[in-house]
């Protein structure tokens, strides 16, 4: 147990001064601006927005600067700031069908209506260090002037399977979803609550769990039916106006997986789906989320619980939040003197008793 301590103010002030100095680094090297972080470390910014659960690239960039690049510390700063803001209300659910896609690929249909566009991807790069970047940051000439922009719509690929009845249908009840930032997480959690928890969960944790399902712990043989990245308008009903307007737009990554399903007592054999939706360009997280979402759905799909970690919603949802986790983990480095003192007394007493019981040699 942590017991409050007093004193140490001078040392703490000096430590924080030194922290500021270390953050700045060598003064002969130019200082990073928040705008440079926002523009040039955008995937770090995206991760901080997703796990901080607040879409604001400038704030996320500031948090990364303040945290010296420690992204979980930056997420902590964003979560703390968020609590100081009033909430004006909920948006309407975003329609990802209308996304202006920078990237859209399918691993299931090569001739997807609307076409496949790679967008700015690391895929198919050779993962060789590019020493040219150390020398200068020149940008290659794009050939976009020659490319004819297509006006073709990009419908969700899953819709084609849904129309044939080959994939499980999604329910639309129109109910307001539960919000774990307002009401503590309680189990069993409905899917909306699980998705919220996964969307703000730690990328590394979800990646590990998703990988475990691929390796056989609750295997569901996922295909990426569609992965899309792009901007989506956010609409909100404005009470004083009596109509909805777009209040902004956010970049999102969406992953829909199509998974094998043998059928159950109530359902004929059909494909099932896993779903991932994440702020920013964050494919690894979106795919991981979809796989874990699918694994957690075993009960509603009438599947067996094989005891795999990714099927255990208590295990997954209570350990996915890196701020909760690091808060509890890191508190053990703070003074626990009184607590430990009692442990020390106890172990000395037990040793004394043990040696008294030992028969004389």
């Amino acid at each position: 147990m942590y017991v409050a301590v007093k004193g140490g103010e001078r040392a703490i002030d000096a430590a924080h001064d030194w922290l500021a100095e270390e953050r700045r680094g060598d003064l002969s090297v130019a200082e990073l601006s928040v705008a440079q972080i926002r523009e040039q470390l955008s995937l770090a910014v995206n991760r901080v927005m997703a796990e901080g659960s607040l879409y604001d690239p400038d704030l996320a960039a500031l948090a990364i600067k303040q945290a010296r690049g420690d992204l979980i510390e930056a997420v902590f700063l964003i979560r703390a700031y968020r609590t100081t803001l009033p909430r004006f209300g909920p948006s309407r659910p975003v329609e990802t069908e209308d996304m202006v896609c920078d990237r859209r690929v399918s691993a299931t249909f090569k001739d997807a209506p609307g076409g496949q566009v790679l967008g700015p991807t690391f895929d198919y790069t050779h993962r060789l260090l590019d020493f040219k970047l150390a020398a200068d940051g020149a940008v290659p000439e794009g050939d976009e002037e020659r490319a004819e922009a297509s006006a073709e719509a990009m419908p969700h690929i899953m819709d084609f399977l849904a129309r044939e009845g080959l994939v499980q249908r999604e329910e639309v009840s129109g109910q307001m979803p539960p919000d774990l930032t307002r009401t503590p997480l309680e189990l069993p959690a409905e899917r909306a609550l699980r998705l919220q928890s996964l969307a703000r969960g730690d990328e590394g944790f979800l990646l590990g769990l998703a990988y475990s399902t691929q390796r056989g712990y609750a295997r569901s043989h996922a295909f990426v039916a569609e992965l899309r990245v792009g901007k989506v308008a956010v609409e909100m009903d404005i009470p004083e106006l009596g109509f909805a307007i777009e209040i902004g737009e956010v970049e999102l990554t969406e992953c829909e997986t199509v998974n094998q399903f043998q059928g159950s007592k109530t359902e004929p054999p059909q494909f099932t789906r896993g779903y991932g939706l994440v702020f920013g360009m964050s494919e690894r997280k979106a795919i991981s989320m979809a796989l874990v979402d699918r694994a957690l759905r075993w009960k509603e799909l009438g599947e067996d619980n094989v005891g795999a970690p990714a099927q255990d919603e208590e295990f997954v949802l209570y350990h996915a939040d890196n701020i909760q986790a690091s808060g509890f983990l890191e508190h053990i480095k703070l003074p626990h003197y009184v607590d430990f003192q009692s442990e020390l007394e106890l172990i000395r007493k037990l040793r004394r008793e043990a040696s008294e019981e030992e028969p004389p040699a």
Partner: protein
Amino acid sequence: MSDPAPHTDRQTWMSLLAKTRPEALAAVWGALDLTPEHALLRGPEIGTVMVQGRAGAVGDGFNLGEMTITRCSVQLGCGTVGHAYVQGRDKDKALQAALVDGLMQTDAAPEVRRVVLQPLAEQAEQRRSKRAAKTAATKVEFFTLMRGED
């Protein structure tokens, strides 16, 4: 499914103002060179809106995460009320957007449309088409290879 996207004139300009970058709005607002008499009814105040997604893209809503929003309401000297809900945390942007919304309901509308809204809409369209061209350049045609066994 929700109603189709907003498209009365007022919804269109409010949506445009919400998505505009603060510097861009400040520039065209400056070009308008109007200092309309007004009283602040609310704000500008910074807050958040909880963005919802849909389970499986088409199903029930779930809470994805919040975004920052600044809102502002003004009353012009003539009594007209203007509202703004804009993305981000820029109070000047929210105030300018509310004034534009108010002015668009007055006789000044044609001038405001010409100097403020049209340039912003053109900039947005340019950004969109430039990005669409970049996207199109990465369009890929995959084809499967016949296996050689038979």
